[in-house]
């Protein structure tokens, strides 16, 4: 794990165990840690899909949750744009965004929000939702916080993937191996597994991660085995085959 990722993960672990958390590494703990560490007033994670569904997963406070609801109701805003364009939407001053999002910018400013920063939860074509920060003060997100926010978004994506495969995360052990070397192999292996199992990319990555975690093997090593064709994933036998 990179040093910087390790630091962000330790913040999430701290938020999970500080009395307000429930002791588990979760998206809720991630939002609380982001709120505490990034110099913002709130953070949220919304699960989204290409066919337009939005599911609030966690928010650090009521306002963060409300901002998400607003965007869904109004059908506009940085969160929806970040998902649609698969790019961060950094809005340092909502007062300058009234032409782009007339409904949302006004409504958010009425609630005292000056800046919004939305980051897609994506890895290539895998897109699971958006991580969003809000702050009362207008102004850019400082460079350090911006880099950390991108890491928070990476971790949120990984938590959603692992939730989907039912992977249990102990506090002291992070199932995420993001060492920079071998990262391309992880993405290539994901594509290979998707074909082997006949599943989509998100499920393929989820299965790859679950395999690494269960076997106590670094993700990059499992991925290298898949790419070198030393390891194949096989579809499970259908439990209730019908005629």
């Amino acid at each position, binding site marked *: 794990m990179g040093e910087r*990722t390790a630091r962000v993960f330790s913040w999430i672990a701290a938020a999970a165990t500080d009395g307000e958390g429930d002791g588990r590494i979760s998206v809720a703990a991630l939002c609380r840690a982001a709120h505490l560490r990034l110099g913002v007033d709130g953070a949220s994670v919304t699960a989204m899909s290409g066919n337009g569904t939005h599911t609030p997963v966690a928010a650090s406070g009521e306002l963060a949750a409300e901002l998400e609801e607003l965007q869904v109701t109004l059908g506009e805003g940085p969160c929806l744009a970040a998902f649609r364009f698969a790019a*961060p939407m950094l809005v340092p001053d909502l007062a300058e965004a009234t032409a782009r999002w007339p409904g949302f910018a006004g409504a958010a400013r009425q609630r005292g929000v000056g800046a919004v920063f939305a980051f897609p939860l994506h890895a290539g074509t895998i897109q699971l939702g958006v991580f969003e920060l809000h702050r009362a003060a207008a102004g850019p997100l400082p460079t350090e916080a911006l880099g950390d926010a991108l890491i928070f978004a990476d971790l949120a994506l990984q938590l959603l993937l692992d939730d989907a495969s039912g992977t249990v995360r102990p506090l002291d052990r992070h199932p995420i191996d993001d060492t*920079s070397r071998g990262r391309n192999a992880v993405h290539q*292996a994901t*594509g*290979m597994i998707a074909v082997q199992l006949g599943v989509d990319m998100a499920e393929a990555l989820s299965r790859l991660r679950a395999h690494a975690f269960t076997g106590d093997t670094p993700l990059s090593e499992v991925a290298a085995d898949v790419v070198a064709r030393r390891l194949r994933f096989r579809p499970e036998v259908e439990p209730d085959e019908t005629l």
Partner: protein
Amino acid sequence: MREQRVADTFVELADTLVAGFDAVEFLHTLTERCVELLDADTAGLLLADERGSLRLVAASTGQTQLLELFQLQEEEGPCLDCYHSGQVVTLPDVSQVAGRWPRFSAMATELGFAGVHAIPMQLRTQIIGTLNLFRMHPNGLDETDAKLGKALVDVATIGLLSERAVRHQEMVTEQLQTALNSRVTIEQAKGILAERHSVDPDQAFTAMRRHARSHNRRLGEVAGEIIAGTVNVTDAVADVRAGNSARP
């Protein structure tokens, strides 16, 4: 006619305001032109991720080991120094720097590389990445090549970031993150083709790029369509497998 090729290349690299501009394809073109026009055997381009690491976005050849050499530089190596200092770093002989970068030196030597020349990609005060030239023979680039390399990188950097008239840090971030994610999509699509057609990831990449070029499509889009299952690149894969290296 090198002069004519140089002039054509500058025009090509400045021409980023076209419909269907694809950042990853653009950067691949830059690496290829550098190898073609300069005394270098291979070139790779690392973009700075705001998470704090350098990521390989394009390389003139697809040898997997070579990619690892570039990736190693997220941790140590002349390209990393170039990025941090904003200065050109030129190394006539990598075997002489084992004390400073032991792993980089060992891997480069093993792969048969002797010289490295790293050029920063800089826009005003911000360094967004580095272009790195590798040579099989010792000795640095001559002065003419070094200047030309710097000029090509400068033009490409301006072209890349002025794609939509970047004035704000916000837009630089959005574009860099989009380019990095596009690279992930390409890797995923390589995996799909590798598995489906029993080719290696490099061949998969060559086929994808060949298909994109011959159909005048963006590389990132073709990759997305391979994943969505809405495009058939069997012909391009067959060409690559047959060892047909001619460009379409």
